[in-house]
């Protein structure tokens, strides 16, 4: 298609590139740790769901860990993130402990919403995390607003949020991104093109294969990245964030990735062709990163195993904490509608 060809001229090639910046061993290890933590948390969420321990639905992000972790890792502490339902990895990177997720899923008093909201629908202002709402796209203008606040307050921070290939169809995507563009706000939007929006394949959501083409329509840079390559995601985000911090305005990044499970745990995703799953299975972001770490001798097999077992213990402890936590008192339902 013509537009696709034209587009590709202006966008980074999606092949993972040689990492432009050297990360320390500690950093490379942390990236691995967070991806493992993300997956282990997700797996625990799935199994608790299957055991009927949750009240509502459960959402995981298997296959998309690199996008969440790599992008969040490129941020500074003062930067704001607006995570979506597939971005638990990013929330973990910001320092939220896994038990907060599980307590929230279980509707416990000790969860960050104290039972008011479920799953990963929580925020944490002291960590500069905005809670998502279900209505997709809402966080785009909202995070642009955080970026505006940084500019007004003359603080050198950036706001970053994510959107799916489905959510990108919502009007707020257009309004929020254009607002940020026109005002040259320090804002980064990562579009996670994971092939599906619930059961709807991306081809029914957009005629263009590369959503990043839309960046041109707002006069901002657009970059495509292999969303399953944590270093590539880190790298492209870091560049976008640096541009933003320098006052050069927003960037739209499209991470090509895949949702390896159903939309939620109740969805068996039988509408996804097997060969598509096989294709992406071979591109598993964690397995690939392990190969890299081993090949580059950053970590040895036993290091990986050690991290995995630390994480497993963490998740066990988180589950114990969450399960042992009390439910909120019924009357607490009345509290907190208004800030005082």
């Amino acid at each position: 298609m013509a537009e696709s060809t034209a587009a590709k001229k202006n966008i980074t090639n999606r092949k993972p590139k040689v990492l432009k910046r050297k990360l320390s061993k500690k950093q490379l290890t942390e990236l691995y740790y967070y991806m493992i933590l993300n997956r282990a948390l997700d797996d625990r969420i799935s199994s608790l769901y299957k055991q009927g321990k949750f009240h509502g639905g459960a959402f995981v992000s298997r296959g998309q860990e690199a996008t969440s972790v790599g992008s969040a890792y490129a941020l500074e502490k003062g930067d704001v993130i607006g995570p979506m339902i597939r971005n638990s990895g990013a929330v973990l990177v910001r320092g939220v402990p896994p038990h907060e997720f599980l307590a929230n899923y279980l509707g416990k008093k000790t969860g960050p919403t104290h039972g008011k909201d479920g799953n990963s629908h929580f925020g944490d202002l002291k960590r500069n995390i905005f809670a998502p709402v279900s209505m997709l796209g809402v966080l785009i203008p909202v995070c642009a607003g955080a970026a505006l606040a940084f500019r007004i307050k003359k603080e050198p921070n950036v706001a970053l949020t994510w959107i799916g290939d489905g959510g990108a169809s919502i009007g707020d995507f257009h309004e929020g991104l254009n607002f940020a563009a026109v005002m040259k706000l320090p804002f980064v939007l990562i579009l996670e093109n994971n092939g599906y929006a619930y059961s709807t394949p991306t081809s029914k959501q957009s005629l263009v294969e590369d959503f990043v083409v839309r960046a041109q329509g707002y006069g901002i840079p657009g970059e495509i990245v292999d969303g399953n390559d944590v270093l590539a995601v880190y790298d492209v985000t870091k560049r976008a964030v640096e541009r933003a911090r320098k006052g050069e305005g927003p960037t739209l990044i499209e991470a090509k990735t895949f949702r390896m499970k159903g939309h939620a745990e109740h969805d068996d995703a039988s509408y996804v062709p097997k060969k598509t799953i096989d294709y992406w299975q071979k591109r598993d972001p964690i397995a690939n990163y392990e190969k890299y770490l081993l090949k580059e001798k950053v970590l040895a097999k036993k290091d990986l195993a050690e991290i995995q077992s630390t994480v497993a213990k963490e998740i066990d402890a988180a589950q114990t904490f969450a399960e042992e936590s009390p439910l909120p008192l019924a009357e607490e339902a009345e509290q907190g509608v208004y800030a005082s």
Partner: protein
Amino acid sequence: MSNITYIEAISKGLREEMQRDESVFCLGEDIGAYGGAFKVTKGFIEEFGEERVIDTILAEAAIVGVSIGAALMGLRPVAEMQFADFISNGWNQLVNMGAKTHYRWGAAVPMVIRLPSGGGLHAGPFHSQNPEAWFFHVPGLKLVAPSTPYDAKGLIKSAVRDNNPVLYFEHKYLYRHVKGEVPDDDYTIPIGKGEIKRAGKDITLITYGSMVQFSLEAAENLTELGVEVEVLDLRSLLPFDKEMILASVRKTNRAMIVHEATLTGGIGGEISACITQDAFEYLDAPVKRVASIDTPVPYSPPLETYFMPNTEKITSALTELAEY
């Protein structure tokens, strides 16, 4: 006659309308091959094809707007919101274009929006709302909210055949929690007409949707006190059956309204005001209201239980009213 669930009844009614009238078509997110988040349109795409069962992009303003445009051209779109909560994204299209078009320039907008709504399933603040009261204050819209499989089928048919934008509130809790006898034949339930679900001479309880069943249970509880509660199911919210309400209150002299939506600004206020206005001399007690508390819908079970009305709360409010 078949004994089917509420959700099957919706599905059946809608399918029959599509069979009856070529101008009816469905659109929404994931309604085609997937059959919809709740499977209301399961099998539709196989039966009616892609042109009449349309998987849309994820964009509710577009879904509502496109429906309006197609309706203006004489078709009868039935749009599904994946959850009622998402109608907030189509709000502007609906209240400014959909609702006001006929008044402004006489063009009919025959369309239906299906709204899977309500709580009780621990689905949190964005998958549990009962947004009907917002639309209740929008002249030009019609609102219906069936409480039984029988009404669900009859009302979806009336909604489809109506020449105005009709919001069809289908309660998710009822989907698979209620079953009932539903004729296999064609029938409709007139929009604007309620039904006396249970006759009684002492108290009039006005309700709709998910609260009908709980209200009937509470009414049963009151018989122990020798109190006979008349339970009215509004079925239609806009217009609502004022005559039925007033006739009942003039007989019982006591009235209570129950809804799952939050109290303040809920449609119970309007109904109470109408009763006080038009049946004041008949009232032996203040009109009571039972509704959810004025907060977003909380997720955690103890909170959600506290938030919502249930049989117990309705029973104790009825008891208070009887004792007044």
